[in-house]
């Protein structure tokens, strides 16, 4: 095996490693539950602040939740209450809004 071939081989290793890393990075685009909860709340609160319309704010929050790959099901149980079910079997009740009890 020549030195040149070994160089090519090593470059190949680096390339494959980079590919693997990219795949993992794509998986990283799945937000954590903490990020989802915070972001949904932020979006809802901002929409309420802008429009004062709960239905519109809820639509915005639900649209955001729909985009999450790890969310399997969404149930709007109240005007500002959403229960989400994750693909791994976990669930979370989101009490949306900041100036609410």
């Amino acid at each position, binding site marked *: 095996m020549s030195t040149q071939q070994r160089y090519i081989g090593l470059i190949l290793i680096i390339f494959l*490693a980079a590919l693997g890393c990219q795949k993992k990075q794509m998986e990283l685009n799945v937000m954590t539950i903490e990020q989802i909860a915070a972001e949904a709340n932020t979006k809802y609160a901002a929409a309420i602040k802008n429009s004062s319309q709960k239905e519109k704010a809820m639509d915005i929050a639900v649209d955001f939740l729909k985009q999450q790959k790890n969310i399997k099901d969404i149930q709007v149980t109240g*005007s500002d*209450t959403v229960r989400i079910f994750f693909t791994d079997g*976990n669930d979370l009740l989101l*009490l949306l809004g900041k100036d609410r009890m």
Partner: protein
Amino acid sequence: MGANLFIPSASVGLRLTRGERAKGRKGEKKFWEKVMGFIIRIQQVVKMSCWISVEIELIFIIEGQLPSFNSKNKLKEAKMKKSFIIACLSISICLVASGSLWAFNPQPEPPGFAKKITELATRVHTDFHNRVMVQKALIPDALAQQKELLLNEPDVKEVMQLRGNNLFVKFKDGNELLMFLGKDNFGGEELGISPTPAKILDKASPMYEAVQPAEAILVSGALASLLPCTPNSNKALVFDCLEDDANVVSPKIAQQIRSDLISMGYSVTMQLNNGAGLANAALIDNGEYGVVVMRGHGGDLGGDFGFLVRPWYTSYPPANSGYVGTIRASAYNHAAGATQFGYVITQQFSSNYWTNKAFPNSMFFLESCHGTDPGALPGMPTWVTNHGACVWLGWDESVSFNCGDHGTDLFFQKMKDGKNVGEALAAVHATGCEPPVLTSYPAGKEHCKLAVWCSDVNESAIPDTRDFKLLKLISTGTSLSAKITFYAVPNFNEFFFYADTGGTNAAEVLVRCHMNNFEVYKQTSPGMYTNKVYTGTPGKSGNDYSLAIPWNTAFGSVSAVKIWLYDMAGKDRLPNSGSVSIKK
């Protein structure tokens, strides 16, 4: 190599053997196959957080794998190249390692049965969706089909159809599952999403009309009064999960409620912040509280009410809270300035833990969102009112801290002023801080009010049979009801019930209480009570002695009286000094 001590399996066979060298291209192919296998092994090992040792291993291997670099005439160049290759390889390994570590999912897989239930629920939801949305079947028909399918499942014990076309499934192992299949939770385009419409009670509803006081009726010469519903205990609980969160009024609302209740003779227990957690929530029935004020985040669960208790969790908490009937939830924590997590308690929680003692005609006041939301009422509120509570109060939608705190403050001020629930609700309504609306549940409890209490210690010098323990006063508007509790079954000849109507510094009315009757006298001259205006029959039960005095007959047109008890023979007085005020 030293690195083999860390991960011997990953390092086996990477070197090009003499045989492989001799086989030329085939040998090289095998070598690269080994390299690829090695990378995979590295990834596996990296997932075990041993990537550093792998890197060391590779560095050592490369040193041994490039013998040509060690020739004398190219020694310097070889060293440089080796350094370059080792650096590249290190970077690549780091990239693989970090990718693997980033992708590591710390959340545990759901246990087998939970997974099975999840699959079942998914199947039911999907099938229901298809039947309703695609096949255009009627919801009740689709629901009946799902119920039938569920009953055929080997793990399912019972399926109940709840209000709102939801299904409640009981499994043979004791687990339960509520399936939201009703049209209020279904019908969206993609995910079956349909928000529950906000249902604001009509402001012209009878709730806001002036509530007629209970009628006093005369039965066989004795006044039997239709007493308003009122708590039978002078203990109160303030369970404030947000005392350290946003507070609008000053002093904080928890302290104002406490102050109001103490002035009415209540013994108030405060559970604040982390004290308002699951453990103490589970004990609410044990306290035999006449008034329970719960302040915190509330949610409409579509058939149930969820109340978020402390503590806050900065990250998603485990599914098992240690208690049944809890759901993980997130809400905005003003103290932390971030959305955080906690557990909400539900009807399942209350029906599991609030079973030791029935609520003593308690008044539950929810300073939270959705406390009386029509979507929440079938759950915890109904369970609580079916287990002894006389009334459940709360906002029928999402309420702000401003309206919540001010509304609560005003409500308890009105209670302190002797107003009934209907009058207090009307006062809050009149502020215009709505929607949402502060309402009561169930209907017809607007006449409920809080009694005024006064307790007295057990005095050793006084026989328990005539030693006053507790006085409870409540006015219906037409009569004043009093219940005197002794430290033992009462046995006395006479004690005096004095009423100061404000005309003089002394009492203007004297009620002479005997075992079998009581007589109401008006003052004719200072210290002389000779004008008998009423005779009644007391109620006796256990250690209690009760009487009902017609207000106008005894006290005239005054709107408030001051009461005290005195036993001349036993020398007991309640209160030991001063008096207890009660408003008409």
